């Protein structure tokens, strides 16, 4: 009886690990889609409203459903204090938040690279400079979506198989 219970727990553990992996994958995809939305909104704020980048981040922070809204508000507030330059504040604050996400390093870089494309005198040129980051983010989303289709089932099956295998070994 105990053996059977132990096997059940091993199976549940393996399946759980596989599901966590799938959840992280889904979370990564959602965050990347959020980054894409951020860039699209930034483009709008730059080219139509012509507001400064810190002000645009403040506007983005008003969307409470967004994962990055709190950090954008912190960046805006710290920038208003004027003790440090914007790129420094942006990188430091965002790095801290990105560590808590399942995003991979190169995916986090998509957001961290934003200040490096600033410095254009015309709003159209500045908005255009965001296109490269937007394109990269969209490409990454496409890749992940395809990966998700193929990998999700495989990971769950693998989890179950490993669970089964370990159970046989234990018995």
């Amino acid at each position, binding site marked *: 009886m105990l053996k059977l219970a132990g096997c059940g727990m091993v199976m549940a553990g393996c399946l759980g690990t596989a599901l966590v992996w799938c959840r992280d994958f889904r979370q990564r995809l959602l965050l990347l889609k959020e980054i894409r939305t951020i860039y699209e909104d930034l483009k709008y704020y730059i080219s139509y409203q012509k*507001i400064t*980048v*810190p002000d645009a981040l403040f506007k983005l922070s008003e969307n409470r459903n967004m994962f990055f809204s709190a950090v954008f508000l912190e960046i805006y507030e710290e920038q208003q204090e*004027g003790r*440090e*330059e914007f790129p420094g504040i942006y990188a430091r604050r965002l790095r801290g938040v990105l560590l808590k996400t399942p995003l991979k390093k190169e995916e986090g870089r998509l957001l961290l690279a934003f200040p490096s494309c*600033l*410095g254009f*005198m015309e709003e159209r040129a500045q908005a255009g400079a965001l296109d490269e980051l937007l394109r990269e983010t969209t490409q990454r989303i496409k890749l992940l979506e395809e990966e998700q289709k193929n990998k999700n089932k495989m990971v769950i099956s693998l989890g179950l198989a490993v669970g089964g295998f370990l159970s046989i070994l234990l018995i």
Partner: protein
Amino acid sequence: MAKQEEILRIFPDYMRARWEKPLQRADKLQEIRMGIGQPVRLMLDGEERFLSCRGCVSTSCQDAWYMTEREMEEILKNVCHYSMYAFENEIRQGFLTIQGGHRIGMAGQVVLNENGNVRNITHIRFMNIRVSHEVIGAADEVMRYLYEDGRFVNTLLVSPPGCGKTTLLRDIIRQISEGNRYAGGKQVGVVDERSEIAGSYKGIPQNRIGMRTDVMDGCPKVQGMMLLMRSMAPSVVAVDEIGGCEDMRAVYQVLQCGSSMLATMHGNSLEDIRKHMNAGGTVAGGKGSFYEPEDFFERYVFMERKRGRCRVREILDKKGGRLYFPERMRVC
């Protein structure tokens, strides 16, 4: 925010230590002039000084801090919050106003559009930071000459550049708006084409211009006056540096609407005023007829600069009669 802090925020954080010493005398600091390959110069209480890399202020340029291209770019980015596109219009006009009402003038390579107008200034190589110093009470002595039976009379402040016209104008606006011993507070509309009067930053006046003052910031004078008349119903309209027939037509319309006018003009005499009023044409439709100052203004306040101080030289009435010939009242 203290003036010292406002000026310090112009510079990137790694440069700030150099500015601590000169900014201890922020109340005496008038200008900071910078150019690539040139020493950083300060105008402190009317005298030129040089800033060294270690942050020392001296009369000699031997140890001076020579600005590099990168430093200049970083200052510009910092001033614009890394959003230069948002300040495109201001940069095109050659200046931008920052928090505290301080103005940063810029010069560099100008890009023209197909009509020959300035499209932008690229490669900004020179900067002039003009520190804003409002003088509260500058108009105390003048105010009594500017009212008749509790009504603010149409007034023109006249002087050559740099004699304190805008400083006096700003304090007159404040006193009209807040109310003074000669009349209660009145609604004032200010057309601040170059953000010099109110020193607005993001549309918020940084200088004290009174609680009943509406500001049309960055707007051309003629359009601004008409917009204010239509939308804000001011009792007094204030503008800086009028001149030419277009401006006078707008002033005429303001007077027709029953508002009083307060303006400044470059010049030194009534003859100068007449010339400036009629520059660029004559009265609409009138062949050979000209605008006369007395058709518009009832008081002329002439100013001058002597020994580094700005003073009111004399105040004339509508017909040119002297109302005030003082022991030279000091404005700033």
